[in-house]
């Protein structure tokens, strides 16, 4: 961009054109004046580029900062909350779990394979940057309906990309969720979570501490891929977005794998004082964030950055998002040892410069200073907006919709089969078979259950993990939807027996500058925060993805919760499948359900409407705590969360997973369809030995949680009776066919 350099030298004459530059870079006039104020002068073109990427919504959290403060972020296990590369929780025995979720929605919309692959690579680097060995990936995906060819293309590309990176790098993809709604047609959601484990004392932060320490770059050469990727991620998508493919990075999982191993060895041998990965906003972000966190400055020689091709301009080198690069802050006396660690893996290091004490990041190129900016201003000086908020018109209309006024379903067996065969509920085995979910031989519960369970070789304990979100619920009632998302994620952990210890969230919304969208965001965050407070799970990290819109149409507000739970031993885990003939099947938790936002309503009537069932968070907490106690005491043989499709779908899933049938007698009801397919929180289906039922009933009673006996495990049918009538009468083979032959 020679014109820009030229402009700088002729600032006064060219003022008019320069106006266009900051706007073109996504900054408002007001933001530009703030930059001038903080800098004490006008920025040159290189500096303006640095500001523009760091003050983008993606890096600067301009529209979300003030709301994110609502989340509870502390707790006895919290070692590191939000603000670092990933959250860190104490998991006992001197070990810590490190985890985070991040979105790669926009890149995946225009280049699904690389968009998803680099999403995996990016979140992976966040984890090992902290000094942790990555142990698992999870993902939460949303697409348009599969009948649509473009949606199918995106779906297939994203799944290939997730597998392509994760399989190669040798970290198992252990759990996930996939939903389909027309609102995600042009703007799919690709949220990837990574979990790692490390000895507590190994934790290393992204801080450029120690004056005269060296700033060292490792990994891939820098090219023109992903230039201004964060700016691209901070705009709404349009018909022209596919032309932004160069803003999408290209992943190299082989190099990623070498970098993990080298970085962890360097951290183990205490050769590095600070570590930062290159993510959004590339070198600019790595430099200014590490300096800003430590309150230091940096002196950088840009020619020391190894380039993939000649002729890259300073602003390109500074904003490129080329993948598989790491920044280390190194005491000069450790440089030789660090080089040795990398040389053994045929990797090069480049010393870019040193840490200074003045808080300024000075960048030189070919002998000239091309940028000199205060790290704190670039990394942390961007404004926090309090956008206008307005309740959308649809909200009141939907809430007053009464699904029970719709004509009742006649054939419950048929409705169940249709639900099981819907893309949202049907078995995703064909998808997760494309991910290596077993490598590292620690996956003791893989995909397909309520949560995955990964054993820890180091301590004998196990981590349970899950990702959950429901865009329909959050659309219909953002506050309630936010609470339900946290409740469901933690409940899924509790169904394995694990105690929920923390969450990471990925908040996918439309354009926050629209008051209706911001209202959805604010309400959802409030609901999530309230649930986190009552359920005592801190939020230790996360990611906000705004501008998920195409043609002015926003996606459903979709907060996705990644939750982590702890089991004292992998042997204590519980699974969803019925496994013992003759076991009693019981419903644990309240019976209150609704059709609002349910899968049944969507399937049967093609409607996303009504109000989802309310949640009593204290009841949720008591129910989960009771469930964990029952599992730990070995009193239940299976537990399955009741969610999409309600009781009937959960029953079918527990039968299929255990390859055994069930016979149930439902209490008489005015609305049988609601009993079978209505959805409500705080409920789980459990199976237990009939001889201990009194003991379990007593425990439930003293915990104040309802427990209803529904029937028994056995046979090769799912038979549900109500009063004297048989209302569902299906062979397991028939159920299996419906559930397993969709993808």
């Amino acid at each position, binding site marked *: 961009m020679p014109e820009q350099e030229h402009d700088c030298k002729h600032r006064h004459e060219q003022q008019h054109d320069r106006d266009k530059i900051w706007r073109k870079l996504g900054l408002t006039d007001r933001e530009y004046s703030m930059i001038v104020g903080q800098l004490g002068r006008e920025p040159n073109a290189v500096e303006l580029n640095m500001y523009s990427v760091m003050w983008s919504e993606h890096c600067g959290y301009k529209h979300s900062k003030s709301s994110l403060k609502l989340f509870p972020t502390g707790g006895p296990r919290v070692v590191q909350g939000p603000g670092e590369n990933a959250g860190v929780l104490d998991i006992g025995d001197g070990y810590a779990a490190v985890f985070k979720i991040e979105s790669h929605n926009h890149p995946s919309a225009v280049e699904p394979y690389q968009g998803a692959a680099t999403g995996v690579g990016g979140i992976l680097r966040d984890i090992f940057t902290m000094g942790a060995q990555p142990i698992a990936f999870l993902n939460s995906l949303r697409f348009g309906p599969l009948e649509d060819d473009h949606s199918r293309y995106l779906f297939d590309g994203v799944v290939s990309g997730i597998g392509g990176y994760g399989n190669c790098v040798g970290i198992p993809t252990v759990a996930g969720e996939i939903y389909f709604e027309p609102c995600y047609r042009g703007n799919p959601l690709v949220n990837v979570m990574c979990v790692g484990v490390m000895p507590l004392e190994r934790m290393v932060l992204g801080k450029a501490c120690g004056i005269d320490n060296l700033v060292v770059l490792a990994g891939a050469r820098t090219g023109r891929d992903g230039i201004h990727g964060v700016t691209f991620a901070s705009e709404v998508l349009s018909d022209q977005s596919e032309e932004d493919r160069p803003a999408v990075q290209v992943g190299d999982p*082989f*190099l990623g794998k070498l970098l993990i191993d080298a970085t962890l060895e360097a951290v183990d041998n205490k050769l590095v004082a600070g570590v930062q990965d290159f993510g959004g906003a590339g070198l600019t972000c790595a430099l200014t964030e590490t300096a800003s966190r430590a309150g230091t400055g940096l002196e950088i020689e840009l020619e020391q950055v190894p380039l993939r091709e000649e002729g890259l301009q300073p602003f390109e080198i500074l904003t490129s998002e080329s993948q598989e690069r790491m920044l280390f802050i190194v005491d000069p006396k450790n440089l030789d040892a660090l080089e040795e660690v990398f040389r053994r893996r045929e990797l090069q290091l480049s010393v870019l410069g040193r840490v200074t004490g003045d808080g300024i990041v000075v960048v030189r190129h070919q002998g000239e200073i091309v940028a000199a900016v205060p790290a704190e201003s670039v990394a942390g000086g961007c404004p926090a907006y309090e956008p206008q908020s307005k309740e959308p018109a649809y909200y009141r209309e939907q809430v007053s919709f009464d699904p029970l006024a719709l004509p009742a379903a006649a054939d419950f067996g048929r409705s169940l089969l249709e639900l099981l065969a819907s893309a949202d509920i049907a078995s995703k085995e064909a998808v997760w078979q*494309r991910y290596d*979910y*077993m490598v590292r*031989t620690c996956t003791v519960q893989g995909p397909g259950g309520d949560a995955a369970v990964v054993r820890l070789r180091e301590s004998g304990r196990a981590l349970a993990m899950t990702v959950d979100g429901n865009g329909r619920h959050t659309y219909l009632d953002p506050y309630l939807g936010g609470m339900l998302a946290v409740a469901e994620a933690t409940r899924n952990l509790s169904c394995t027996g694990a105690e929920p210890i923390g969450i990471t969230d990925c908040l996918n919304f439309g354009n926050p500058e629209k008051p209706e969208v911001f209202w959805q965001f604010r309400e959802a965050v409030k609901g999530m925060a309230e649930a986190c407070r009552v359920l005592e799970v801190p939020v230790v990290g996360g990611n906000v993805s705004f501008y998920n819109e195409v043609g002015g149409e926003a996606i459903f507000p979709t907060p996705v919760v990644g939750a982590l739970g702890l089991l004292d031993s992998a042997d204590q885990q519980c699974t969803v499948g019925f496994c013992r003939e003759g076991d009693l099947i019981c419903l644990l938790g309240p019976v209150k359900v609704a059709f609002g936002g349910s899968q049944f309503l969507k399937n049967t009537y093609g409607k996303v409407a009504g109000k989802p069932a309310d949640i009593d968070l204290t009841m949720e907490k008591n129910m989960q705590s009771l469930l964990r106690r029952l599992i730990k005491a070995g009193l239940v043989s299976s537990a399955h969360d009741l969610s999409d499709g309600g009781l009937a779908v959960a029953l079918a899933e527990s039968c299929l997973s255990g390859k055994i049938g069930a016979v149930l007698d439902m209490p008489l009801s005015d609305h049988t369809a609601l009993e079978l397919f209505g959805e409500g929180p705080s409920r789980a289906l459990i199976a237990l030995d009939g001889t201990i039922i009194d003991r379990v009933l007593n425990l439930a009673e003293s915990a104040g949680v309802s427990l209803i006996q529904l029937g028994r495990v056995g046979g090769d049918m799912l038979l549900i009776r109500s009063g004297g009538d048989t209302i569902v009468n299906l062979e397991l083979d028939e159920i299996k066919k419906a559930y397993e032959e969709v993808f």
Partner: protein
Amino acid sequence: MKFGVVVFPGSNCDLDAYHLVRDVLYEQVEYIRYDVHSLGNYDLIILPGGFTYGDYLRSGAIAARTPVIGAVKDFAGRGGLVLGICNGFQVLTEAGLLPGALYRNDNLQFRCRQVYVRVENAGLPFTRASSRGDLLKMPVAHGDGNYYAPPGLLRELEEKKQVVFRYADQSGELTARANPNGSVDNICGVSNRTGNVLGLMPHPERAAQKALGSADGLVIFESVAEYFKSREVQGGA
């Protein structure tokens, strides 16, 4: 016994093989770097799974040209036992230590799932603790596992009993459904002529503990242990 696990750049099941030997078999184990020119004393060399050099070329092709392969060839030439799992199998075919080749899966997708493997030759050091026709439940996890050998070679492999494992269904039938990748004649494991080098696509190291879904893979390592014990007895006599 002492096992060696070869680590190439991009190997990622090296850790699993290592832990299998140390924590499940309770035997000695060492990693061996891809750039060594000679091997120490080992009873079994494992080439583990993974994506050597990213498998950006043909799977295993670059790893097959690293210095350690020369040493592995010498070791095998002296009768040493070599086991290639998944990517390790691909490396061994690329290195010419095993016959045939592994193509892209016929469905063009990566496949990770449990399969049943039928023992076709129970007379090898790797299979002597099993019986012909035994079914072993083990997982596969690969994108390039479609075994191919031309008809002439296939006949030869059959005659010399070099086909060691085949994909089968739960009742032992060699069905197309049981075959996850289109491998010719459902073949998933082959040996060299002398029976001391074995490659297989399924992962026995991932099927060595009940907690992981199956312990059937252990029979391969029990066979190797039995093989060395019998040699000791013979040597003693």
